[in-house]
Protein backbone atom coordinates (compact mmCIF):
# COMPACT_ATOMS: atom_id res chain seq x y z
CA UNK A 1 0.00 0.00 0.00
CA UNK A 2 1.24 3.50 -0.80
CA UNK A 3 0.47 6.54 1.30
CA UNK A 4 0.94 10.29 0.91
CA UNK A 5 1.49 12.95 3.52
CA UNK A 6 1.40 16.72 3.74
CA UNK A 7 3.11 18.64 6.51
CA UNK A 8 0.86 21.53 7.48
CA UNK A 9 3.21 23.06 9.99
CA UNK A 10 6.55 22.52 11.64
CA UNK A 11 6.42 23.32 15.36
CA UNK A 12 10.01 24.28 15.94
CA UNK A 13 9.68 24.89 19.68
CA UNK A 14 8.63 21.27 20.27
CA UNK A 15 10.29 19.70 17.22
CA UNK A 16 7.01 18.29 15.98
CA UNK A 17 5.10 18.31 12.73
CA UNK A 18 1.42 18.75 12.08
CA UNK A 19 0.81 16.26 9.31
CA UNK A 20 -1.96 14.79 7.22
CA UNK A 21 -1.61 11.30 5.83
CA UNK A 22 -3.86 9.27 3.59
CA UNK A 23 -3.75 6.47 1.05
CA UNK A 24 -2.37 7.42 -2.35
CA UNK A 25 -5.52 6.05 -3.97
CA UNK A 26 -7.90 7.60 -1.47
CA UNK A 27 -10.95 9.27 -2.96
CA UNK A 28 -10.91 11.86 -0.19
CA UNK A 29 -8.61 14.86 -0.79
CA UNK A 30 -5.73 14.90 1.67
CA UNK A 31 -6.72 18.41 2.75
CA UNK A 32 -10.02 17.03 3.98
CA UNK A 33 -8.41 14.49 6.30
CA UNK A 34 -7.66 15.43 9.89
CA UNK A 35 -4.15 16.44 10.87
CA UNK A 36 -2.16 14.94 13.73
CA UNK A 37 0.91 16.07 15.60
CA UNK A 38 3.89 13.74 15.32
CA UNK A 39 6.90 14.19 17.59
CA UNK A 40 10.03 14.32 15.39
CA UNK A 41 12.08 12.88 18.24
CA UNK A 42 10.37 9.60 17.43
CA UNK A 43 11.33 9.72 13.77
CA UNK A 44 14.55 9.02 11.92
CA UNK A 45 15.85 12.44 10.84
CA UNK A 46 19.15 11.41 9.27
CA UNK A 47 17.92 12.26 5.77
CA UNK A 48 14.71 12.64 3.79
CA UNK A 49 14.47 8.96 2.90
CA UNK A 50 14.84 7.91 6.52
CA UNK A 51 12.36 10.57 7.64
CA UNK A 52 9.70 9.45 5.15
CA UNK A 53 10.27 5.79 5.92
CA UNK A 54 10.01 6.28 9.67
CA UNK A 55 6.94 8.51 9.37
CA UNK A 56 5.23 5.90 7.23
CA UNK A 57 6.17 3.04 9.52
CA UNK A 58 5.35 4.87 12.73
CA UNK A 59 2.18 6.72 11.79
CA UNK A 60 0.80 5.97 8.35
CA UNK A 61 -0.87 2.62 8.96
CA UNK A 62 -2.51 3.94 12.16
CA UNK A 63 -3.71 7.13 10.42
CA UNK A 64 -5.07 5.23 7.46
CA UNK A 65 -6.75 2.60 9.60
CA UNK A 66 -8.56 5.34 11.52
CA UNK A 67 -9.60 7.07 8.31
CA UNK A 68 -10.87 3.82 6.88
CA UNK A 69 -12.83 3.04 10.03
CA UNK A 70 -14.66 6.37 9.73
CA UNK A 71 -15.81 5.43 6.24
CA UNK A 72 -19.00 3.48 5.77
CA UNK A 73 -18.58 0.01 4.36
CA UNK A 74 -20.53 -0.55 1.19
CA UNK A 75 -23.28 -3.11 1.75
CA UNK A 76 -21.78 -5.19 -1.04
CA UNK A 77 -18.40 -5.15 0.74
CA UNK A 78 -19.54 -6.20 4.20
CA UNK A 79 -17.50 -9.31 4.96
CA UNK A 80 -18.54 -12.47 6.74
CA UNK A 81 -16.30 -14.16 9.29
CA UNK A 82 -14.67 -17.37 8.11
CA UNK A 83 -12.37 -19.54 10.14
CA UNK A 84 -11.40 -23.15 10.76
CA UNK A 85 -10.94 -25.84 8.15
CA UNK A 86 -10.40 -24.59 4.63
CA UNK A 87 -13.25 -25.35 2.24
CA UNK A 88 -12.57 -23.42 -0.96
CA UNK A 89 -15.82 -24.33 -2.73
CA UNK A 90 -17.82 -22.89 0.20
CA UNK A 91 -15.91 -19.61 -0.07
CA UNK A 92 -16.82 -18.96 -3.67
CA UNK A 93 -18.87 -15.80 -4.02
CA UNK A 94 -18.46 -14.70 -0.39
CA UNK A 95 -16.80 -11.50 0.82
CA UNK A 96 -14.17 -12.38 3.42
CA UNK A 97 -11.95 -10.02 5.41
CA UNK A 98 -8.22 -10.36 6.06
CA UNK A 99 -5.48 -8.02 7.28
CA UNK A 100 -3.06 -6.83 4.62
CA UNK A 101 -0.35 -5.13 6.62
CA UNK A 102 0.19 -7.15 9.78
CA UNK A 103 3.28 -8.94 8.48
CA UNK A 104 4.53 -9.67 11.99
CA UNK A 105 1.67 -12.03 12.70
CA UNK A 106 0.59 -15.17 10.91
CA UNK A 107 -2.58 -17.02 11.84
CA UNK A 108 -2.25 -20.07 14.08
CA UNK A 109 -3.90 -23.16 12.81
CA UNK A 110 -6.16 -24.44 15.61
CA UNK A 111 -8.77 -27.19 15.32
CA UNK A 112 -11.79 -27.36 17.59
CA UNK A 113 -12.84 -30.87 18.55
CA UNK A 114 -15.64 -32.40 20.59
CA UNK A 115 -14.77 -34.71 23.45
Amino acid at each position, binding site marked *: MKAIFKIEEYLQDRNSIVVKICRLHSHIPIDETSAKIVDCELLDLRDTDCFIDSLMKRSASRFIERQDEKQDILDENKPIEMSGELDLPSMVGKVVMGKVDDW*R*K*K*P*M*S*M*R*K*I*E*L
Partner: protein
Amino acid sequence: MSCQHYFKKLDNFSVCALKANKGVLEVEPDSESCAIYQYVFNGSAKIGRPFESEFFEVKTGDFFSMKDYLYTPRMYEALEDFYMFGFNIQNKDEDWHGRLLKDEALKVENESVIICLDGNPFINNKRLVQFDYADLSTDKTYDVELNEGVVALFTKV
Protein backbone atom coordinates in the same frame (compact mmCIF):
# COMPACT_ATOMS: atom_id res chain seq x y z
CA MET B 1 18.05 -14.14 12.45
CA SER B 2 14.29 -14.05 12.16
CA CYS B 3 11.26 -13.82 14.34
CA GLN B 4 7.67 -14.75 13.59
CA HIS B 5 4.53 -14.23 15.62
CA TYR B 6 1.39 -16.33 15.27
CA PHE B 7 -2.05 -15.43 16.57
CA LYS B 8 -5.60 -16.75 16.55
CA LYS B 9 -8.67 -15.28 18.19
CA LEU B 10 -11.09 -17.97 19.29
CA ASP B 11 -14.51 -17.69 20.93
CA ASN B 12 -13.54 -16.97 24.54
CA PHE B 13 -9.77 -16.66 24.43
CA SER B 14 -6.92 -16.19 22.00
CA VAL B 15 -3.72 -18.08 21.38
CA CYS B 16 -0.38 -16.94 20.09
CA ALA B 17 3.09 -18.27 19.45
CA LEU B 18 6.51 -16.80 19.01
CA LYS B 19 9.23 -18.43 16.93
CA ALA B 20 12.63 -16.76 17.09
CA ASN B 21 16.14 -17.65 16.08
CA LYS B 22 18.95 -17.62 18.63
CA GLY B 23 19.96 -14.08 19.46
CA VAL B 24 16.71 -12.38 18.48
CA LEU B 25 15.51 -9.68 20.86
CA GLU B 26 11.78 -9.11 20.59
CA VAL B 27 9.66 -6.56 22.39
CA GLU B 28 5.89 -6.83 22.70
CA PRO B 29 4.07 -3.55 23.35
CA ASP B 30 1.75 -3.37 26.34
CA SER B 31 -1.33 -3.49 24.11
CA GLU B 32 -0.32 -6.95 22.87
CA SER B 33 0.87 -8.35 26.20
CA CYS B 34 -2.23 -10.32 26.98
CA ALA B 35 -0.79 -13.85 27.29
CA ILE B 36 -1.35 -15.09 30.83
CA TYR B 37 0.27 -18.50 30.41
CA GLN B 38 3.10 -19.58 28.16
CA TYR B 39 4.64 -22.91 27.23
CA VAL B 40 8.06 -23.42 25.68
CA PHE B 41 8.06 -25.99 22.88
CA ASN B 42 11.80 -25.78 22.45
CA GLY B 43 14.81 -23.63 23.15
CA SER B 44 15.41 -21.15 25.93
CA ALA B 45 14.97 -17.44 26.42
CA LYS B 46 15.24 -14.59 28.85
CA ILE B 47 12.00 -12.75 29.61
CA GLY B 48 11.68 -9.38 31.28
CA ARG B 49 10.47 -5.84 30.88
CA PRO B 50 12.46 -3.45 28.67
CA PHE B 51 14.92 -1.26 30.59
CA GLU B 52 14.50 -3.22 33.82
CA SER B 53 17.30 -5.30 35.28
CA GLU B 54 15.11 -8.18 36.46
CA PHE B 55 14.42 -11.07 34.14
CA PHE B 56 13.87 -14.81 34.30
CA GLU B 57 14.87 -17.66 32.05
CA VAL B 58 12.63 -20.29 30.51
CA LYS B 59 13.49 -23.48 28.68
CA THR B 60 11.97 -26.40 26.79
CA GLY B 61 8.92 -27.81 28.56
CA ASP B 62 8.36 -24.88 30.94
CA PHE B 63 4.75 -23.86 31.50
CA PHE B 64 4.49 -20.61 33.43
CA SER B 65 2.22 -17.74 34.36
CA MET B 66 2.75 -14.30 32.86
CA LYS B 67 0.00 -12.62 34.87
CA ASP B 68 2.54 -10.29 36.51
CA TYR B 69 3.42 -9.01 33.05
CA LEU B 70 -0.13 -8.51 31.83
CA TYR B 71 -0.49 -5.42 29.65
CA THR B 72 3.06 -4.28 30.32
CA PRO B 73 5.73 -4.32 27.61
CA ARG B 74 7.63 -7.62 27.48
CA MET B 75 11.05 -8.34 26.13
CA TYR B 76 12.26 -11.75 24.97
CA GLU B 77 15.83 -12.69 24.17
CA ALA B 78 16.19 -16.07 22.49
CA LEU B 79 19.23 -17.83 23.97
CA GLU B 80 18.72 -20.69 21.51
CA ASP B 81 16.31 -21.15 18.62
CA PHE B 82 13.07 -20.66 20.50
CA TYR B 83 9.41 -21.57 20.03
CA MET B 84 6.78 -20.67 22.60
CA PHE B 85 2.99 -20.82 22.91
CA GLY B 86 0.78 -18.29 24.68
CA PHE B 87 -2.76 -18.44 26.08
CA ASN B 88 -4.31 -14.97 25.96
CA ILE B 89 -7.25 -13.34 27.64
CA GLN B 90 -9.58 -11.17 25.60
CA ASN B 91 -10.73 -8.75 28.33
CA LYS B 92 -8.73 -7.09 31.05
CA ASP B 93 -11.16 -8.10 33.80
CA GLU B 94 -11.10 -11.84 33.18
CA ASP B 95 -8.82 -14.42 34.70
CA TRP B 96 -8.08 -18.06 33.95
CA HIS B 97 -6.12 -20.67 35.83
CA GLY B 98 -3.85 -22.86 33.76
CA ARG B 99 -1.92 -26.07 34.32
CA LEU B 100 -0.51 -28.99 32.39
CA LEU B 101 -2.46 -32.22 32.68
CA LYS B 102 -1.11 -35.52 33.95
CA ASP B 103 -2.49 -38.99 33.28
CA GLU B 104 -5.67 -38.40 35.25
CA ALA B 105 -9.44 -38.53 35.37
CA LEU B 106 -10.33 -34.92 34.82
CA LYS B 107 -13.48 -33.20 36.01
CA VAL B 108 -13.97 -29.44 35.84
CA GLU B 109 -16.32 -27.17 37.76
CA ASN B 110 -16.09 -23.99 35.68
CA GLU B 111 -15.84 -23.01 32.04
CA SER B 112 -12.71 -24.79 30.82
CA VAL B 113 -10.81 -25.58 27.69
CA ILE B 114 -8.01 -28.03 26.95
CA ILE B 115 -5.39 -27.43 24.29
CA CYS B 116 -3.09 -30.09 22.93
CA LEU B 117 0.33 -28.47 22.87
CA ASP B 118 2.45 -31.36 21.71
CA GLY B 119 2.44 -35.03 20.80
CA ASN B 120 -0.55 -37.31 20.41
CA PRO B 121 -2.31 -37.63 23.74
CA PHE B 122 -5.63 -39.44 24.11
CA ILE B 123 -8.62 -37.94 25.90
CA ASN B 124 -11.63 -40.22 26.27
CA ASN B 125 -9.83 -42.45 23.78
CA LYS B 126 -9.77 -39.71 21.16
CA ARG B 127 -6.33 -39.08 19.66
CA LEU B 128 -5.37 -35.42 19.62
CA VAL B 129 -2.81 -33.62 17.50
CA GLN B 130 -0.99 -30.38 18.18
CA PHE B 131 -3.31 -27.37 18.52
CA ASP B 132 -6.49 -29.37 18.84
CA TYR B 133 -8.65 -27.74 21.47
CA ALA B 134 -11.96 -28.54 23.12
CA ASP B 135 -14.43 -26.95 25.47
CA LEU B 136 -15.03 -29.14 28.50
CA SER B 137 -18.39 -29.88 30.06
CA THR B 138 -18.87 -29.70 33.83
CA ASP B 139 -21.09 -32.77 33.52
CA LYS B 140 -18.44 -35.12 32.17
CA THR B 141 -15.29 -36.83 33.34
CA TYR B 142 -12.39 -36.96 30.91
CA ASP B 143 -9.83 -39.75 30.93
CA VAL B 144 -6.47 -38.27 30.05
CA GLU B 145 -3.68 -40.46 28.69
CA LEU B 146 -0.77 -38.22 27.79
CA ASN B 147 1.10 -40.78 25.70
CA GLU B 148 4.17 -38.52 26.10
CA GLY B 149 2.16 -35.58 24.73
CA VAL B 150 1.46 -32.27 26.41
CA VAL B 151 -2.03 -30.97 27.17
CA ALA B 152 -2.86 -27.73 28.97
CA LEU B 153 -6.06 -27.07 30.88
CA PHE B 154 -7.35 -23.53 31.29
CA THR B 155 -10.26 -22.84 33.64
CA LYS B 156 -12.02 -19.52 33.98
CA VAL B 157 -11.69 -18.14 37.51
